[in-house]
C-alpha cells in the first residue's frame, strides 16, 4: 500500500534522475555548466507558466491561451518600450515600465479569461480557445505579419536579464526556482491552495463549506496571467523580438508538464513540485536528443508524447475491485 503511493509520488522524480544519468552517460558535454544553465533557463518560461497552470488545472479549469498570451504580451511590451525610448531614454526606467506593462497586461488577460469562465459561466476550454485565437491574431496584427524588434540600445541594456545572473545560475533560473518554491508553499500551506484543491475535488462541497468558489477560480486565472507576464519579461531579452510564431505550443507544453508532474487533469490534486519535475523532464529530453546521435531530434515530440501517456498510465489510481 505505502509502496504504491510512494511510487505515485516519486515516479516523475525517478524518471528525471534517470534522464539525468542517461544524459551524462551519452555525452560528457551534458554536465557542462553552460549546458545545464541553458537547459534550465529555457525551462524557466514554460516552468513559470506551468506553475500557474497547476493552480488552474487543480481547481478544475484549463487555460489554452497562455502561449498566445505570452506572444501578445511580448509584442505589447516591446511596443511600449520602443514608444517610450525617445521620451524617457534608453535606460532602466523604460525597461521597468515595460516590465510593469507586461505584468499588468498578464494580470488583465488572466482576469478576462477568469471572468468569462466564472461570471459569464462559459466553459474554460471554450473561453481560452477563443482568447488563444484572439491573442495570437493580435500579436500578428501588431507586428503586421512580421517581427517586432526591441530598440537596439534597450536590447543591450536588457540582455543580461536573460543571460547573466549569479555565476552560471542565470536570472530566469533564479526566478523560476523562487516561483516554484512560492507556488509549492501556496498550494500546500495556505488557505488559497487548500480551497483550490477542494474546488477541483468537488465544487459543490466547497460552496457548501462557504468557500467563495467563483473568486478562488478567478484568482487562479489571474495568478496564471501574472506568471505569463513574468515569463514574458524573462523571454524578451533573449531574442529582443516577438512575432506571430512566438510561444507557439507553449500551452500544450505547460499542460503536459503539469500532467507529468502528477496533477490530475480533472482537478482536485495539485503538485507544484511535480510540475517543476515535469518541466525539467521535457527540457532534458529535448537537450539529450540534441546532444546524442542515437535518435533524431525530429522525434523529440514523439518521445515527449510517449512520456506524457506513460506518466498518466503509471500514476493512474488503481481502481478498487472493479471488473
Amino acid at each position, binding site marked *: *500500500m505505502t509502496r504504491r503511493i510512494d511510487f505515485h509520488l516519486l515516479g516523475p522524480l525517478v524518471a528525471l534522475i534517470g534522464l539525468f544519468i542517461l544524459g551524462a552517460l551519452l555525452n560528457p558535454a551534458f554536465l557542462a555548466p553552460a549546458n545545464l544553465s541553458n537547459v534550465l533557463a529555457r525551462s524557466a518560461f514554460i516552468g513559470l507558466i506551468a506553475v500557474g497552470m497547476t493552480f488552474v488545472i487543480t481547481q478544475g479549469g484549463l487555460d489554452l491561451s497562455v502561449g498566445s498570451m505570452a506572444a501578445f504580451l511580448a509584442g505589447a511590451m516591446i511596443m511600449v518600450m520602443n514608444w517610450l525610448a525617445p521620451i524617457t531614454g534608453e535606460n532602466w526606467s523604460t525597461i521597468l515600465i515595460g516590465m510593469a506593462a507586461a505584468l499588468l497586461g498578464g494580470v488583465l488577460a488572466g482576469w478576462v479569461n477568469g471572468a468569462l469562465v466564472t461570471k459569464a459561466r462559459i466553459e474554460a476550454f471554450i473561453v481560452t480557445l477563443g482568447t488563444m485565437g484572439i491573442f495570437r491574431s493580435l500579436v500578428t496584427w501588431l507586428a503586421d505579419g512580421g517581427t517586432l524588434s526591441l530598440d537596439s540600445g534597450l536590447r543591450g541594456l536588457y540582455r543580461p536579464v536573460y543571460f547573466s545572473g549569479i555565476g552560471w545560475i542565470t536570472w530566469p533560473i533564479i526566478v523560476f526556482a523562487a516561483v516554484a518554491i512560492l507556488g509549492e*508553499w501556496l498550494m500546500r*500551506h*495556505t*488557505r488559497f491552495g*487548500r*480551497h483550490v*484543491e*477542494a474546488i477541483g*475535488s*468537488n465544487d*459543490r*462541497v*466547497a*460552496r*457548501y*463549506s*462557504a*468557500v*467563495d468558489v467563483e473568486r478562488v477560480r478567478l484568482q487562479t486565472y489571474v495568478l496564471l496571467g501574472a506568471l505569463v507576464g513574468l515569463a514574458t519579461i524573462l523571454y524578451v531579452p533573449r531574442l529582443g523580438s516577438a512575432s506571430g510564431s512566438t510561444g507557439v505550443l507553449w500551452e500544450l507544453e505547460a499542460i503536459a508538464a503539469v500532467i507529468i508532474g502528477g496533477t490530475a487533469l480533472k482537478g*482536485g*490534486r495539485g503538485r507544484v513540485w511535480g510540475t517543476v519535475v515535469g518541466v525539467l523532464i521535457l527540457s532534458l529530453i529535448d537537450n539529450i536528443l540534441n546532444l546524442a546521435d542515437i535518435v533524431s531530434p525530429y522525434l523529440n515530440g514523439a518521445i515527449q508524447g510517449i512520456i506524457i501517456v506513460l506518466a498518466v498510465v503509471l500514476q493512474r489510481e488503481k481502481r478498487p*475491485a*472493479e*471488473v
Partner: protein
Amino acid sequence: MTAPVLALSAVTRRFGEIEVLHGVDLALQAGEVHALIGENGAGKSTIMKILGGFLQPTTGQVLLDGEPAAYRSGPAAEAAGIVVIHQEFNLVPDLSVAANIFLGREITRGPRLDHKAMADAAAALLARLDTPIRPGALIRDLSVPDRQMVEIAKALSRRARVLIMDEPSAALTRREVESLYAQVDRLRAEGVALLFCSHRLDEVARLADRITVLRDGSVVGRAVRGEMTEDGMATAMVGRELSDIFPAKAASFGDELLRVDHLNVAGAVPVRDATLTLRHGEVLGIAGLVGSGRTELAEAIAGLRRSDGRISVRGAPTQIGSPADAARAGIAYLTEDRKEAGLLLDKPLTQNLTLAALGSFGFRIDAAREAAAMADATRDFDIRAASPDMQAGSLSGGNQQKLLLAKTMLTEPRIVIIDEPTRGIDVGTKQQIYRFVRSLAAEGRGVIVISSELPEVMGLADRVLVMRQGRIAGEVAGDAITEENIVRLAMGVAGGAGGAGSTRQDETRKEPA
C-alpha cells in the same frame, strides 16, 4: 425446506490485516424475502458485494443452486440471474430512461437501435411500478426517488432470479415506498429470491420472511417472520438495550435567536412567504413531504439560494446573499447530501474537517493545530477512523455524518440547520447524533432539524413546523406534536386536532398555490 438458490457457506473476508466477515452462513430461498440488518460497518455491504460477484470470499464458498458459483464479476453474476441494486445509482445522466434500462442489452433491428421497442418495453416496466416517469425523460432531469424507480425497473428488465437491494427505500417518498413494497410482494410471488438491507425496521417487519442480524462481521441472530419485534431487532443489532433513543427535551428557552420574515425562494419548489422564529436552546423541527420546500428554505437561510424577505439574527436584520454571509452571521447548514455536497470523499479526514473554518488556522495553515482539531473532533464526536489521513469516502455512513457534524461545529455557529441528520445511519449512531443535537441546543445554540422520518422529528424537536407545497402549513408544539397532527398539516387535511400543546394553522395555506 428446498435447496437455497444462492447461499454463503462459512464465508470469511479479509481486507489486508483486518477480517471483516467471520464465517457467515446465509441462505436465500426462491420466493422468499430475506432482510439483512445490522449497524453500519457490521459487514452488510461486504456480504452484498460477495453475493453480487464484486468481491470474492477469502475462505468459504458462494453456492448457486447448491454448486460452487462460477461467477467472478458483477456482470457475470448478472448473467447468472443475480442482480444488485446499489445505493449509489448506476445510471447515465445524459441518456434517457429507456436507454438506461437497456444499456448494454439494447434491442436492435439489424444494425439500428429499435428505439420504439425499447421505449415500449420501458413504459411497460414503469407502468408495472406504478410510476409516472416517461421512458423518454433524461435521467439528469429526474428526482432522486425517480432515479431509484428507474434502477428498480432496470433490475426487473433483467429477469432476476436473485435480487439484492441496498437500502431500496432510502430515497423514496411514502407513495413510492408503497409501490416498491407491492413490487417486492409481486417478485416474491413470482419465485424470485430477494435480499435487502434496510435501516428502517418497520420496513423489515413489513417485508421480510426471514431476518439475519449481523454484528461486527458475525451472524448474531436469525428469525422468521413474526418472531422478532422491531425492538428485538434493534437490540440484536446493537447488542444492548436501547431504552430511550431520544434525549430529554429542553425545559426552557432563551431569547429569540433567528427570525425569518416573509421569505420567498425561487426554484423548482418555490418557497413562498415563509415566516419562522428560533430561540436560543431550542430544537425546531421542519417536517413535510419530500419536495415540500424544506431543503429550499434551509438553503436560502444558509445563503445557498437567492431569496427575498427579511432575516434577523438576534434582532439585527442581516443580509444573507452567500454562504460566507451566513457563516459570518453564525449560521451553519449541514446538507442532506453528504456525499455530493458535504464531504470531499477523495480527501483526508483532516482536510475535510477544517475546510469550512480554514480562516482560523492562520494564513499559513498551522498543521499542528489542524491535527489537534482533528484529535478533538475524533474524541468529541466519536469518529471511528483508522487514521486521520484516510479518505473521507472510506468512512462508514455514520462516521461520515459525525465528521460532517464536527466540520460544521468547527465554525462555531450559533444557528445550526441539519438536513436529514440520520439518513442511512444505523440505530446506535442515530442515538449518538440525537444526543449531539440536543447538547448543541443545551449550549444555547438554536438548532433546526429537517427530517422525513416523523419519529425523528417528533422525538427530537421542541416545536415542529410542517411544510406543504412550498409554504409553512402550520406549527405544532409540546403535546400537540403527534404523528396525526403533522400528517394532517403535511397532507393539507384541514382541522388539525389540538392537544395540551398548541397547533397553529397558517392562514396562507388556503391560498391557491
